[in-house]
């Protein structure tokens, strides 16, 4: 059973423009606060470890999603790590072509069981298994953001 009437003139087609007028202010959370403070103040990466599951979470978590235990064993990981996947983006966030393609990798920091996504620079022909190290912003410039790490590069 279809509609009894259809739009048959193009001039009758119309779309009404609008937006969702929202913006968001995120807190980092309990574990996130600790992770980003450590990165900002000391330039170090902190994971959290579940002894029962023998898993080091990065970014850290205050609970273990596998067994639900509360986690309070904080463990420094990295700063170096191993590339587990790598790709080069030719399009940006809005779908337009990037002037300079950007290489992105999933990196397993030494001592962590999870992977971190970040940019790769100054590293021609990087392959899975390559060793990389972070290039951090200088201390005064760091804000407690994942962008306090400028990028990773091949060791």
């Amino acid at each position, binding site marked *: 059973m279809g509609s009894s009437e259809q739009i048959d003139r193009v001039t009758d087609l119309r779309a009404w423009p609008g937006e969702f007028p*929202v913006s968001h202010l995120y*807190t*980092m959370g309990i574990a996130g606060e600790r992770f980003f403070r450590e990165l900002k103040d000391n330039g170090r990466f902190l994971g959290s470890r579940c002894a029962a599951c023998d898993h080091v979470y990065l970014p850290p978590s205050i609970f273990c999603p596998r067994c639900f235990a509360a986690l309070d064993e904080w463990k420094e990981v990295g700063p170096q790590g191993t590339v587990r996947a790598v790709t080069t983006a030719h399009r940006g966030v809005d779908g337009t072509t990037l002037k300079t393609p950007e290489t992105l990798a999933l990196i397993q920091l030494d001592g962590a069981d999870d992977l971190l996504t970040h940019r790769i620079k100054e590293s021609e022909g990087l392959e899975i298994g390559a060793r990389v190290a972070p290039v951090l912003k200088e201390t005064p410039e760091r804000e407690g953001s994942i962008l306090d790490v400028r990028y990773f590069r091949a060791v």
Partner: protein
Amino acid sequence: MRKVAVVGAGLTRFMRRAQETGPELAWLAASQALESCGLGLKDVDSVAIGTAPDAFDGVHMKGEYLAPGAGGWGRPVTRPYAGGGTGVLVPIHAWFNVASGLFDVCLVVAEEKMSTCHPHPQGAFVTIFDNILERPLEPNLIWIFALEMQRYMDTYGITKEEIALVSVKNKRNGLDHPSTHVAEEITVKDVMESEVMVSPVNRLDVSPVSDGAAAIVLVSEDVARRISDNPVWIDGIGWNLDTAYWTNRDLAYPSYVERAARMAYKMAGITEPRKQINVVEPYDPFSYKELHHLEGLLLCDKGQAAKITADGVTQRNGDMPVSPSGGLLGVGNPIAAAGLMKVAEIFWQLRGEAGRRQVPGQPKVGLAQAWGDLMQVGTVVVMRVD
């Protein structure tokens, strides 16, 4: 269908703004709910997650985002959704999980973090209005409630002062609730003299914007008998949706709540709800909504809810205690978590574990209800102890 029981519950504090992330809040409530009944995550077969529009948290795919903190890692997870009605729809959905025989233990988790929406969640709320016919008028969310409240008052000759008694009662009840961030001792005069927002709605007629989480554990009869001395049975469930064209609705009476209640009553074998239901947690985001819902739930005649409130019937020590928790007005309103908090309250009330909030007389049957979507859904559960 198998019998289904609630055996555990947990809550976070409700807060204007929480430092915790959504998954962290979910875990705080969920781990507490499991601990309260001596279960661990390894015992959980499935997970049902409730949370209102993604626009509040600013996280798309919020069910998936919350899942690790809700115990969903490596498990069958679903996220039923009915806007503000979600907090009671999610245990209804969890009931399917267990009653069907598919799962023995279902962890039910609701979370909301409205503070992320900045500077105010109105930006997300306005999008419930029709984008073409209504948003050009630049409506505020409260318009809908103010218009409905005015129609309700006019139809039955109810005054603002009578409605204000709901805020007075619930904010006082909330003083005894450990999750509250808005409880206070106030008078009808305080409500009447609080800032007029959108007439007839004043500031103290409105529940706040909150962050928080709630969780309960639903289990099959076998598990319930094994791990609990006093399981609370879910005897009836009901839900119903009215037309999306809210300007076409009868704004004086929530017929969709009545249909949801009738469905739940039939299933629970309740023929005289006013006699058989001992304690009630109806949805009270606005003071008049508690009255509106009591009528829709057939717990008093149309237009009579204000009178029974004035007569003290709905006080904790009254003949039919209503919102003994303090409700959304007295505890806070992290949307889906607030609805599930009401289910948790009935659980504690029926077990005699509500502490200073406990209603007298050893209640045997209780009801929790939520409401929302495009202001047109009613969700109801009826619960009972042996």
